[in-house]
């Protein structure tokens, strides 16, 4: 409660939160409020510029771009969010286990994470997509796998830092089971950096998913996705720049909100960067 109130004093963080809430509402209930479906074609208005009827214009099939952007946004955000959630939960678990037990568990787990971490993220995701197919579940799995080592590393490093803290030692001395210590003592105290990393990772996951769909190795048409709409738009971007521009701006707005929110969270949790007043 107190930390939430402190967060409310962080101006940019609050702006970020507002943007994120608005974006979330828009993609979740927006499509229901628009008279056109994302697949509805209007052959009378192909590549129509933005107007009152079509605020974002239409594409080459006469489909309403706003409707497609909102629905595509829903798909992209859900995929990215799920992927990051999985990566954060699994990664924290691996990291805590590794950092708390050290020894050979740590050695093996971290070498695997190091290997995963050495691959360029986009390349790894791309390879996995090609090999295992373009289903949404596979996109989620690929993105989660790419971000897994980041969360595992952060969780491990913070665990290593606090495992020597007196209050953890005190818990050990009470004879509590390691699992209980990890769950009730360590996890709550490493959740802050994990949260911050999750917000950063969420933004990167959106970019990664959009990039995959953009080159055609992600969400497959006819399902709309932000990257896919941009990819459509680039084919005629000199004649009808709004398709590309509007979908690109939609990505930027979502990213801006998440990044500002992440900044707020980080300033809140990192005492070193906290402003002195």
């Amino acid at each position, binding site marked *: 409660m107190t930390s939430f109130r402190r967060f409310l004093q962080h101006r940019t963080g609050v702006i970020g939160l507002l943007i994120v809430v608005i974006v979330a509402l828009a993609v979740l209930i927006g499509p229901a409020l628009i008279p056109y479906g994302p697949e509805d074609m209007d052959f009378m208005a192909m590549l129509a510029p933005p107007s009152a009827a079509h605020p974002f214009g239409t594409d080459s099939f006469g489909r309403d771009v706003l409707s497609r952007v909102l629905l595509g946004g829903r798909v992209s955000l859900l995929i990215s969010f799920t992927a990051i959630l999985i990566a954060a939960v699994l990664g924290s678990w691996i990291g805590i286990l590794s950092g708390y037990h050290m020894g050979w568990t740590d050695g093996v787990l971290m070498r695997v994470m190091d290997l995963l971490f050495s691959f*360029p993220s986009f390349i790894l995701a791309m390879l996995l997509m090609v090999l295992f197919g373009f289903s949404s579940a596979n996109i989620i799995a690929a993105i989660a796998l790419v971000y897994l080592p980041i969360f595992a590393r952060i969780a491990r490093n913070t665990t290593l830092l606090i495992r020597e803290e007196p209050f953890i030692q005190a818990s050990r001395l009470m004879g509590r089971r390691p699992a209980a210590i990890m769950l009730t003592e360590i996890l709550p105290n490493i959740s802050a950096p994990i949260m911050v990393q999750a917000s950063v990772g969420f*933004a990167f996951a959106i970019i990664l998913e*959009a990039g995959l769909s953009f080159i055609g190795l992600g969400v497959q048409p006819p399902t709309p996705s932000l990257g896919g709409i941009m990819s459509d738009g680039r084919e005629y971007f000199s004649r009808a720049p709004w398709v590309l521009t509007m979908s690109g701006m939609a990505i*930027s707005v979502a990213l801006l909100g998440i990044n500002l929110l992440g900044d707020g969270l980080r300033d809140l949790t990192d005492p070193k960067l906290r402003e002195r007043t």
Partner: protein
Amino acid sequence: MSELLGTQAKAPGLSERWGPVALYLLKRLLSGALVLLAGTAAVFFTIQAAPGDPALSALGEQATPEAIAAFRAEYGLDAPLMVQYVRWLLGFFQGDLGQSLAVARGMPVGALVLQKLPATVFVGFFALFLAVVLSLVLGTLAALNRGKATDTIATSIAVFGVSMPDFWMSYVLIFGLSLGLGLFPAFGYVAPSTSLTGALHATFLPALAIAAPMAAVFARTLRAVLIETLSKPYVTAAKSFGLRRPFILVHFVLRNAMVPYLTVVGLQIRYILGGVVVVERIFGIPGIGSLMVDGAFARDYNVLQACTVVFLAIVLLVNVAVDMICALLDPKQTVK
């Protein structure tokens, strides 16, 4: 400075630390090679584990069983997996990465990669250079004017920067600087061996598109690191000795901020290379990224595998280089 150097005859410089640094380099290269080896195995067996048959995708669904068997024999796909891997690995050490199955059927992948590599390396380093320069300016300005208008402007630019994916940034740059102002070409590539200025001109937009989001990340890191370094006791101590502010900033603050900053730069290399793939497609640059996307669509596993390993090798090499620089900058890593 010359009057200082004269008195410094007995004070050894960096040279004395080359020994431990070289040892460190050797160790890092060795562990890098091990990771690369593990990486090749991981990629190889993942590809084998994946559903789909390279012969089918190369020859089409209507291929006769005889044609498929011939194809498999031709490319050695009928041998057991371990044998295939060892064969591949032996070839890899001799620069033989197998033959392309689909992209340029029958052509050695090694030659293909060598042909495409320079463009990717050139654009990648150009982008890295731009990102570092931009971030040094932005990050330093923001940290030194903390809380003032300059800081607000610089951090805002950085936040907008990280909110611009490279492929979207590419089109913004094309709209503005190419179609709008006509300053740079929107498509095409000139090899630096043909004309260095021509290459810089042709690849400026793609390099900037990759660099911009990275510069934003670097700048934010640098700002945070600088602010932390500014509050270190040795900075206060330097002030108490009356050392001039610019001197303190260079030798105490920036000098000690470089190691954490470069560490982050090293970690971000993997994102820069990801950016290369998409941006190469957009700007029509004949690099490894384009090759890999072609290989992906054609399901040319040999090409995919080779490209992945090459990208992995680049990341590992750059990381070793960054670690080296950090070891040189930070005496704690190399002395005692």
